[in-house]
Every structure is written in structure tokens, then in C-alpha cells.
């Protein structure tokens, strides 16, 4: 009678296929539902409505920057200044440091252009910028 010695069984590895399935499903879920937009907020506080329309805060002097189109230029006291001209804008900001920087915009100016101007003023040292003023319905 031949002797049958039982061969030592090799350790059965767990199949990786279900693991890969689950990991792929998780990966798909996170890829589709993740958002990479870094949202920030720019405060545009509105003045409380009043019965008599008055120009916002008469005490602080204003430095009015006016956007007439999306051509990358801003108007200040009838001067046309490029939004890229950091040096000139810094000069203007330093001359009016205590003023309220009021932004005005014509109808066809894009929101992005307005934000570019606000960014540039902030970069050049302006502290108080009134962005909400650009959205007033009266003619700029």
C-alpha cells in the first residue's frame, strides 16, 4: 500500500479582486464629488435703505475710480490709468490714504473687471474700498 503523505497546503492568498472593486468605487465617488474651487468672499455691505437718497457717508472724502469698459483702464479724475500700472495707482492711493475708495462702473463692465480693480487697489495699500457702490442703480 503506497503511503500517502499529505502535502503541506500552500497558504491560500485572499483574492484581491473584490478589494480593487471597492477601491475603484470609492475612487470614482471621490473623483466625481470633490470640488477643488477655493471659494472666498468679498464683503459688499449695503447701506440701509432710507427715504431720502443721500450719497453714502458724507463725512469721509471719496476717491472715485470709474470703470467705463472692460479694456483694462480705469478713470480717476478724468485721467485714464491702466489697471496694470501699479506704480501710478500706488501714487494715487498714497495721496488719498484717508479717503474712501469708491468704485463706479458702467453697465457693460464685467464683474471680473471690477474685482481686478478692487484687487489692484488693495494691493497698492487702499484700506477702505466701497465695491457695493458700483451696483447702485443710479447712473454712474
Amino acid at each position, binding site marked *: 500500500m503506497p503511503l500517502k503523505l499529505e502535502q503541506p497546503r500552500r497558504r491560500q*492568498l485572499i*483574492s*484581491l*479582486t473584490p*478589494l*480593487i472593486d471597492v*477601491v*475603484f468605487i*470609492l*475612487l470614482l465617488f*471621490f*473623483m466625481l*464629488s*470633490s*470640488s*477643488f*474651487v*477655493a*471659494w*472666498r*468672499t*468679498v*464683503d*459688499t*455691505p*449695503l*447701506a*440701509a*435703505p432710507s427715504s431720502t437718497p443721500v450719497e453714502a457717508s458724507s463725512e469721509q472724502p471719496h476717491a472715485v475710480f470709474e470703470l467705463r469698459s472692460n479694456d483694462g483702464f480705469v478713470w480717476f479724475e478724468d485721467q485714464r490709468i491702466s489697471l496694470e500700472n501699479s506704480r501710478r495707482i500706488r501714487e494715487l492711493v498714497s495721496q488719498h490714504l484717508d479717503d474712501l475708495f469708491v468704485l463706479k*462702473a*458702467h*453697465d*457693460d*463692465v*464685467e*464683474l*471680473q473687471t*471690477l*474685482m*481686478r480693480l*478692487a*484687487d489692484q487697489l*488693495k*494691493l497698492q495699500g487702499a484700506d477702505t474700498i466701497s*465695491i*457695493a457702490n*458700483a*451696483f*447702485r*442703480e443710479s447712473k454712474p
Partner: protein
Amino acid sequence: MNINQKFITQRDRHGDGSVIPLINVVFLMLIFFMVAGQIQRSDPITIDPPTSINEKRPNLDPDVLIIVGLGNEVYVNDQPVAMDEVESMLSRLFDESSKPDQFWVQIKADGHLNIASLRPLFSAIRRSGLTKVSVATQLGQE
């Protein structure tokens, strides 16, 4: 060389050995998306927000989220609303609010939207008596 081939055939007999690099890559991608991405409620329409260097993050979630798309469609808290109904809706939401002191409105508008189409919205918010308003921007430079 023979020994090497022997090990390869042994490994392939089990079937799963060759997929280990794949699993490594997939795990890395999974970890990347889990850590770097943020899961949040998606907006009813896709907008391209204006970019800004502004770093300010809101401390609280907005009480009212107004989304304005390029076609001037307005969504208040994910509900499509006509522009002339915004004022009454905001007043109602403000009256229902449990914390009226902290009530604030966030506007997500497309960066290519012109100012003229946003003026009626700001007027409606102003008429409804709300003063805390913010415009959502995206971090970065144009």
C-alpha cells in the same frame, strides 16, 4: 535567470500578483482625492466665479445663497426665482431666520456677467433691508 522565471510563474499562478502596482496607484489617487478635494453640495448651475487675490473665508455658512448665471437666471437657495420675487423671498427668509443678527447673503455670480444685470439684484436686497452681503470669488489671479 531560470530561478527568476520560476518565481514569476509561481507568482502568476496565483493571479493577483501582477495587479499590486495597479492597487498602489489607485490607492494613491484615492488618498489624493480624499485629502485634497472638498465634498460639498453642488450648485444648480455651473458658474465661473471671478478670481481675486482676496483671502477671506466666511466663518459661517450663508443664510441665503443667490446664484446668478450668465443667462441672468437667478437661484435663491437652489430654487429658480424671478428677479421681481427676490425681494419678497428674502424678506420671508429673514423673518423665518432664528439668528437675524448674523443673517447674511452670499452672491455667486459669473465673472463674465456685466454689472447692469447685477444692479436689480443688489437693489432688491437693499429694498428687503438686508445689509450683510458678500460676493463669492475664487482664489487666484486672472
